[in-house]
């Protein structure tokens, strides 16, 4: 249950940051050089936000995704053969009009990476939206009503977690060909269960709480309780989970695209780009290096952000991370 945050924490909260405390201090007098933090106010929040991950996500994922056509003069799908396989600008033979080089069709790599961000964002947003809505609904129902509903939902969760996703994706794609819709569907199907499980757990614990008991005694309907009491409490973990899942989805989508079961070529999904550049790794390493780096950097930042969010929203429970 959400305890209100008061200063200071109990003495053995295991806090890692030491104040500039002096040893062998004379006891009398006001406290030694302790920084006076205001109550969790704006100034403190601003100082504590993880700016680097946020900026990276903004500049490597969100802004390119939203403003791709404005950011680059090139067409991501068509290039000039005369400019094929140019290395990055700082190397011999490179040029600043193609900062990250070009591929074997003369397409600008930087442009494709930018458009790749768009693909990653679209796929992850769609898949998470579907997965989260589906999963949370089922999780709420399972956690709140328990009994047979819970048993069925739990079994469904276990079953879907046992599905060999890669194999199924390969099969489907082998027959009907890869497409955006296909990959979004496949990924939604695989991530709804994480949401369901998490939400179910939270719902279970909220259900046992006092304020829910009071509502039930007062005669509130299940829907009302779910919406007014359970959902707000579940939102925190949902936000954290969704953030972390964006990274998971990007990794999954790029993996599937890499093996040909995701986004169809010639779309510049980062996974597809790595696959396309793979045979030229010895002669044109930049074809695979930059898209993969983009994935690494974005997912890393998302994980950092997710962890920070978790600490921020639930500091007493998650202090160890």
């Amino acid at each position, binding site marked *: 249950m959400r305890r209100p945050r008061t200063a200071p924490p109990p003495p053995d909260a295991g806090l890692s940051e030491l104040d500039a405390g002096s040893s062998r201090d004379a006891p009398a007098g006001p406290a030694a050089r302790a920084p006076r933090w205001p109550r969790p106010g704006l100034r403190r929040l601003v100082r504590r936000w993880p700016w680097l991950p946020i900026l990276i996500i903004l500049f490597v994922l969100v802004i390119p995704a939203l403003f791709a056509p404005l950011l680059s003069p090139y067409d991501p799908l068509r290039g000039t053969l005369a400019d094929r396989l140019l290395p990055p600008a700082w190397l011999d033979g490179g040029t600043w009009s193609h900062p990250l080089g070009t591929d074997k069709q003369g397409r600008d790599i930087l442009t494709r990476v930018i458009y790749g961000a768009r693909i990653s964002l679209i796929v992850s947003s769609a898949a998470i939206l579907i997965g989260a809505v589906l999963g949370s609904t089922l999780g709420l129902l399972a956690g709140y009503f328990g009994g047979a509903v819970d048993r069925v939902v739990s*079994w469904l969760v276990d*079953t879907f977690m046992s599905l*060999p996703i890669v194999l199924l994706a390969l099969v489907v794609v082998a027959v009907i060909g890869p497409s955006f819709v296909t990959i979004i569907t496949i990924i939604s199907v695989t991530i709804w269960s994480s949401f369901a499980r998490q939400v179910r757990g939270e719902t279970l614990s909220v259900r046992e709480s006092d304020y829910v008991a009071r509502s039930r005694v007062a005669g509130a309907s299940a829907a009302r309780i779910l919406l007014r009491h359970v959902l707000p409490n579940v939102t925190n973990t949902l936000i954290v989970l969704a953030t972390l899942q964006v990274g998971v989805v990007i990794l999954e989508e790029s993996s599937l695209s*890499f093996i040909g079961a995701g986004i169809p070529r010639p779309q510049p999904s980062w996974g597809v780009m790595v696959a396309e550049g793979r045979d030229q790794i010895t002669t044109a390493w930049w074809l695979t290096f930059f898209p993969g780096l983009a994935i690494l950097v974005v*997912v890393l930042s998302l994980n950092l952000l997710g962890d920070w969010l978790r600490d921020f929203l639930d500091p007493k429970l998650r202090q160890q991370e």
Partner: protein
Amino acid sequence: MARYIVINVIRGILTLIAVSIIVFALARLTGNPLDVLAPVDMGPEDQAALAAKWGLDEPLAQQYLTFLGNALHGDFGPSFKFPDETAGSVIAERLPVSLQLGFVALVLTVLVGVPLGILSAVRRNSWLDRTAKGIALFGQSVPEFWLAIMLIWVFAVNLGWVPTSGQAGWTSILLPSLVMATFGIAALLRLFRSSMLDTLGTEYVKLARLKGLPKRQVIWKHALKPGAIPPLTFFGRIAVRLLTGATVVEIVFSWPGVGLLAFEAANARDFPVVQALALFTSAAIVVMNLVVDVLYAYLDPRVRLGQRVVS
């Protein structure tokens, strides 16, 4: 306890049935196997004969039941791609290769992930802890296929320390197992760290120190035993994933295991093999979940003995 096991076994069986239905449905509904089996120029009567031979003219439900019946006897039908072999034998041939890789990856995961996780909890906020957390973060964020390619480029192509692909000498297993272990190490490390931090902060650990026990015993006996239980479930999942073949890694390294087989079979629309593989993988997961659940119950006396209280 016995009841617990029985219930879980039943659930597992239901899961397997569900998975087999899903796989079967997906495979058949998205395309007609006949298109794969029959040469393009085959006439309609010959096609019909072929269909009858494979039982493809029967209603879908019937086909499924036939499949299921045969599967229970271990007969998954012949491989469409290699008609002289059965699906089962194709898989059996490639399985040991994946198991080798998976086993090495698993050993790596445990040897690196567990001690690092424990030590990072014990020496919280030390340089070791920070390094471990960094490794964990990296392992969770890096795309496997890209890491594999980059490692090949550096160590095989440029440095020539290991072969670039395939099973060629004992060194060839190093890179693929390393790549496969990366995610597992990250996850296991985090889990152990988190769990150990929980147990290290408990009252009973405090009491153990109050009894005068040396710190080492307090950590390795009192904190570790309860602390190792939660990571166990995840360990089961990793183990299964590693042992049943990681398709992407096998593709990048051209490692001839069941992961690569899955890729090849799906592309060739070799449905019997695909179905058999799906069942096999799911069965492995289900069995592992069961084993882990039972182990969990066994290790935690609160679950094992139930809640009878004596006063």
